[in-house]
């Protein structure tokens, strides 16, 4: 079972990519992008997990107690912020696209070909 979390991370990444490539709706596409990103959360947190480790907070806990890795948690926090901001921008763009084109199907907007 020790490979399961990583297999899930790989699966989530692949599913998200499939969603992005086949998406017919920019909002759906933005959500697929967050799915791909969740695979990085899974990957980071799974890597830092230690069997029997507590949270890396030493309030009332003796120093030197085994904990899970604190660094991956800090990285995941940054990762979440990155995800939120990019999604906010893409959603704002999708709103503007809808105002201009009346559709948010990326396949139907072909302003940029060639």
């Amino acid at each position, binding site marked *: *079972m020790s490979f399961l979390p990583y297999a899930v991370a*790989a699966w989530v990444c692949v599913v998200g*990519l499939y969603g992005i490539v*086949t998406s017919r709706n920019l909002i759906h596409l933005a959500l697929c992008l967050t799915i791909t990103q969740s695979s990085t959360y899974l990957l980071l947190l799974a890597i*830092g997990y230690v069997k029997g480790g507590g949270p890396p907070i030493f309030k009332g806990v003796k120093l030197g107690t085994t904990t899970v890795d*604190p*660094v991956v948690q800090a990285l995941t926090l940054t990762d979440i912020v990155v995800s939120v901001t*990019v999604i*906010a921008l893409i959603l704002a763009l999708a709103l503007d696209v809808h105002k201009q084109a009346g559709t948010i199907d990326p396949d139907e907007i072909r302003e940029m070909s060639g």
Partner: protein
Amino acid sequence: MTRRVRIWIFLPALAGLAALLVWGYLGIPGFGDYHGPYGFVLDRLATPLRHMDNVVNATTYDIRGFDTLGEEFILFAAVIGVVMLLRDTDEKPEMRDEVESDLVRVFGTLAVGGAILVGLWLVAFGFVTPGGGFQGGVAIAGGAALVYLVAGYRAFAAFGDEQVLDPIKGVGAGGYVVIGLAALVSGLPYLTNLFSGGAVGTVWSGGSAGFVNWAAGMEVAAANLILYAEFLNQYIVPIARRS
């Protein structure tokens, strides 16, 4: 290129990528067998050197505080970008109070106060217990967003006023930079914790990381509120136009 062609080229490539991912991930130590060293070194250092119980918070706002500075500005730039992209609907529609239920009003008001209190606590005690400036800022903004639920759009618009939020956001983000510069001016490396040494487990234990938490909290709360206000406006304005 048609969708069919796209998907037929895509699927084999995706299968290949999946195979590569599995092959690579097999090289990771088994789940639960992580053996460091980085995080465990920090576990041993954070409390003795920085008097902070919460190592994640010490990592985020002190040891790797420079990452968080960049992260602050990612949010900062994204909010400016969103406001710029949605700039065509600057109108603030006159909406009547649309909340009908007294129950929602009573519990909602409690929730607003509660969420903001929790947020402030998260910011203030992040290095002692789970929390931190970023987390608290999001909670505060969430509490303020509940005002829309409780008292309607007009009351919320007062919270979401950019004339007020922009300075808060700017001071929060700029404050983070200045806390770092203060160390540099004192002849120490950027973002050095200047007054570490308060008693472990108290609100003073973080030293200048405490100020960093507050700067981040301000920036994040204001930035998130601007985001809520902008997107809510996109939803409200068409309704107001129709009625």
